[in-house]
């Protein structure tokens, strides 16, 4: 039972990650490989603040979101000078830089050894330690993020994003500020990615840089693509399937290290197959705008 709760919490974290990426990648057409990096920034900010200053959860969360958002704002103003594949390369670069900061800035992040003994979430004077309570917290955040993203993407800003991901020049000719909208979308997406980061750090109570690698970014992107670009519900369902499905491997009696590799292989194959499906571009599955 404990294990099932643990899996559900992980699913919740990935739902938030994939939905936040969907805002940039799906609606804005900004395929980002740096999402695990922003997730990691959220996690590290939370870990450092919680272990060193014993701050409460409600203080940590906005700070982590702000840290991730500020970084995203700075890098996106630069990276968004490029489009499509060059943009992907730039975000890959951001991901590698963030990872190398986590891995090498010994005095701050403790390098490859990671940070251990992160205190549990303290909310309104209560320590949330049991899995049930944490699941409840995760679910409520999933609902909150889902709600905000839904409102955001249905708003006129969401419409602008959809339009610019289909035809940038045309959108510009309608008087929309394309560059600014992209920056806002990218920054918001990074800020939302910090929320699961904070939850993850305080839930697992130990983090190290290997949780925030390029592979993780690709995995989150896989969830978004499988669930369908611009479909928040799709990301929701796809997170369930992709996080829970590899657990079957464990029941087949594979050793832990091989199961991890097999998981990656499955994700990779699924991603390639999806590319065959979407080979004419992602707009095939668009709904009426």
């Amino acid at each position, binding site marked *: 039972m404990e294990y099932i709760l643990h899996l559900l919490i992980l699913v919740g974290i990935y739902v938030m990650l994939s939905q936040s990426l969907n805002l940039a990648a799906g609606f804005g057409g900004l395929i980002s490989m740096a999402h695990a990096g922003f997730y990691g920034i959220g996690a590290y900010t939370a870990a450092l603040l919680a272990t060193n200053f014993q701050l409460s959860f409600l203080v940590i969360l906005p700070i982590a979101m702000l840290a991730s958002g500020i970084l995203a704002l700075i890098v996106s103003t630069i990276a968004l000078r490029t489009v499509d594949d060059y943009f*992907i390369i730039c975000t890959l670069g951001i991901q*590698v830089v963030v990872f190398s900061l986590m891995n090498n800035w010994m005095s701050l992040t403790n390098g490859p050894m990671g940070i251990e003994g992160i205190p549990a979430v303290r909310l309104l004077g209560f320590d949330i330690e049991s899995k049930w309570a944490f699941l409840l917290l995760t679910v409520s955040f999933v609902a909150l993020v889902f709600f905000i993203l839904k409102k955001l993407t249905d708003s006129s800003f969401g419409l602008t994003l959809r339009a610019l991901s289909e035809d940038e020049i045309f959108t510009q000719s309608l008087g929309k500020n394309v560059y600014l909208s992209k920056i806002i979308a990218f920054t918001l997406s990074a800020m939302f990615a910090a929320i699961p980061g904070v939850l993850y750090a305080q839930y697992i109570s130990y983090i190290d840089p290997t949780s925030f690698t390029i592979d993780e970014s690709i995995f989150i992107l896989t969830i978004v693509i499988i669930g369908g670009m611009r479909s928040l519900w799709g990301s929701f369902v796809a997170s369930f399937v992709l996080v829970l499905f590899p657990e079957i491997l464990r029941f087949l009696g594979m050793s832990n290290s091989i199961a991890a590799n097999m998981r*990656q292989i499955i994700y990779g194959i699924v991603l390639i197959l999806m590319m*065959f499906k979407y*080979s004419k571009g992602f707009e095939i599955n668009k709904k009426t705008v």
Partner: protein
Amino acid sequence: MQILINIIINSALFILISYSFSIIYYSTRFFNMTHATVFTCSAYFAYLFLVQLSFPIYLSVLLGIVCAAIVGILCEVVIYRPLQKRGASSMILMIASLGLYIVLQNVISVAWGDDTKSIRSGDIKAGYEILGAYITKTQIVTVAICLFIIVVCIFFMRHSRIGRNIRAIATNQELSNIIGIDSNKIILLAFCIGSVLIAISGLLVAFDRDMIPTMGFKWLLYGIVSMIIGGVGSTWGLVGGAFLLATAQHVGAYFIGSQWMDAIAYIILILFLIVRPLGFSGKLLKKTEI
């Protein structure tokens, strides 16, 4: 002096990697991330033949290169060509290649394990001393081979029929098809040449340092960065980009520590995107096209 030698070694490797990448990039116009796996594959196949099956060294090097090249070509035939036939854009192809990279890299992990492997024979020697700096025999061989191959390739691309056809495809695929160049065949040849070149560089790196299944990605990204900062589409720009990248990395490593090499590479890339978005040779970087 030691820094200078390291710069020369690394820029030679960067040139080879980014050149092999650019051959494929020019003819197909997408970032083939699976190239990183070909790099790793050649090292691991050489390890299989040399250490596990104890073949003679020249044979296993040759087999390593051939097997890795076959992997590269299979990727093109099995995945990319069908995708391109269905009209995939370069971005779709790139994401597919990322997926393929993940698959193949984990296959290597399953087959050989995640731990560090070494195909260096014998114990580590200090190497030769030149003006107070050390250079090993492998490193001298590395530089020599890289420079030799680059010169041969540039010559080949300029003056042979196949080379000219590849460049024709790179410039304008439709027009090349009209005058009777079979673009599928030429792209396959480009994959073949590119894969052999990256396989050679993979082997050179493996003989000089140890290997892990994920090593290819880092080196490939260095190659891509030197291609972009050198200016896409120019061979001399690429050489300059590789040299600049290696210089910045080693000078940076000297002052702030060698663990920051990856970060330095990307900070240079980002600086170039701000100051000279066209690369220093001035060719066009893909921006919003009208």
